[in-house]
């Protein structure tokens, strides 16, 4: 069986992407608070929703990334 090596740079890159997803979700929360005229406390109290949004976004991002990875692999083998 082959060992899987996770490089520090890969982990850092994934964490940065996840952080960006979290920031995007929180921005979405801010937009919702402004759009629906909700109290600002929802920026904190709705953190559960924000986390779920960030994880979903992160997972969704894997779809184009996997496609890109696949294309890259195919072009290298040719």
């Amino acid at each position, binding site marked *: 069986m082959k060992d899987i090596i996770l490089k520090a740079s890969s982990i850092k890159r994934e964490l940065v992407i996840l952080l960006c997803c979290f920031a995007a979700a929180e921005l979405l*929360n801010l937009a919702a608070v402004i759009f629906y005229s909700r109290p600002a406390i929802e920026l904190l109290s709705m953190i559960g929703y924000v986390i779920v949004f960030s994880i979903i976004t992160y997972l969704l991002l894997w779809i184009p990334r996997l496609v890109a990875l696949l294309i890259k692999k195919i072009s290298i083998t040719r």
Partner: protein
Amino acid sequence: MERRDFIKEFGLGAGALAAVPWLASCVRKPDAAKGDKARLALIGSGSRGQYHIHMLRGIANAELVAICDPYEVNLQAALALCPTAKAYSDYRRVLEDTSIDGVIIATPLGSHARITLDAISAGKHVFCEKAMALTLDECKAVYDAYTHSDKALYYCMQRMYDEKYVKGVQMIRDGLIGDVVGMRCHWFRNADWRREVPSPELERKINWRLYRENSAGLMTELACHQLEVCNWVADRMPVEVAGLGDIVYWKDGREVYDSVSLTYRYSDGRKISYESLISNKFNGMEDQILGKNGTVDLTRGVFYLEEDNLEPGIKRLAKQIVDKTFAAIPTAGPSWRPELRSAYAPHPLIEGQVSVNAGQSMVSADHDGSDLILEAFCNSCITGSKAESVVEEAYCATTLCLLGNQAMDEKRVVSFPSEYKIPYMKF
């Protein structure tokens, strides 16, 4: 704020008094000496009478001095709860006792009017269980006697003193759910409504609710409370009623319906849709006030908004995204879609723990306003002051119940008869 204090504070507010004038009776007048006690007699010591004994124990200015019941079993059960009280089997002997300030009547409906009239004649203040009386003529006779007397008369319409109802009605009037467009009340149970009878000759006495000589059935026993709330919200009386009543399941010799379905119509077209069934409890008991912008369920002390602006922003956004992404073909728009009841988010009418008497158990049964209305009665016994609008509300609710029964019996639309109208009524 404590529940009791809330009602008292509410009763003092000048603005609130217009909507709930009876709450002023919760506040003792300053001229009443501290330590004064209302000397009371209980007439009818069955389960409801014993419930009142339980309530009186928590009221500092109440003293139960006499208990009356012709049925020895109930009399002894009540005396066990209050051994210092004097026992009577004939209510007329109780009324002869000049040391008694007021009487609490918890007898079968058929005797409410007679005992109330005798008690008022004897110079007693009266607290009577709902409904007011068994017939329209009796209701009118009691109402006339009350208006010509200086004695206080209360009917145990406890929703009038229940915090969630008081606050809820106030919020509805303040525009919480927009224009009130209808009312939907029901009371479903799955029980035969029978009590155990030790010997057959007592059947009609113990199970009095099932027989017409003493009962008007589901209407006076259950609907009475709910119709009162509807009038309170609408601030007027329905002009007519239609309905159907049947004995659907409990065909055990009873004479009152076990299934009723009625529609009361106000002059502006709004309606009360009322239903009660005692062979299925799925829908439970609900007093729903339907507004253009939302619904208030007074029974549970919650409200729902059609467009829920109180829902967190991100939750609403997520719903919109899901709706836009997964919605079916939008042909013809919302008017075409089948509308199943949505999972509306409930919002509380009052902060803190809401006392709900669900009816299936006695938990919270003593915090439904019954204690406060009884305390208000004790205040009246001491100060001699009448409670505003309590008798009038009971009169309106009871007459509607009796007209509902008439509509069901005669299978026709019954308009409110002019001879039973009182000045308090607005149509």
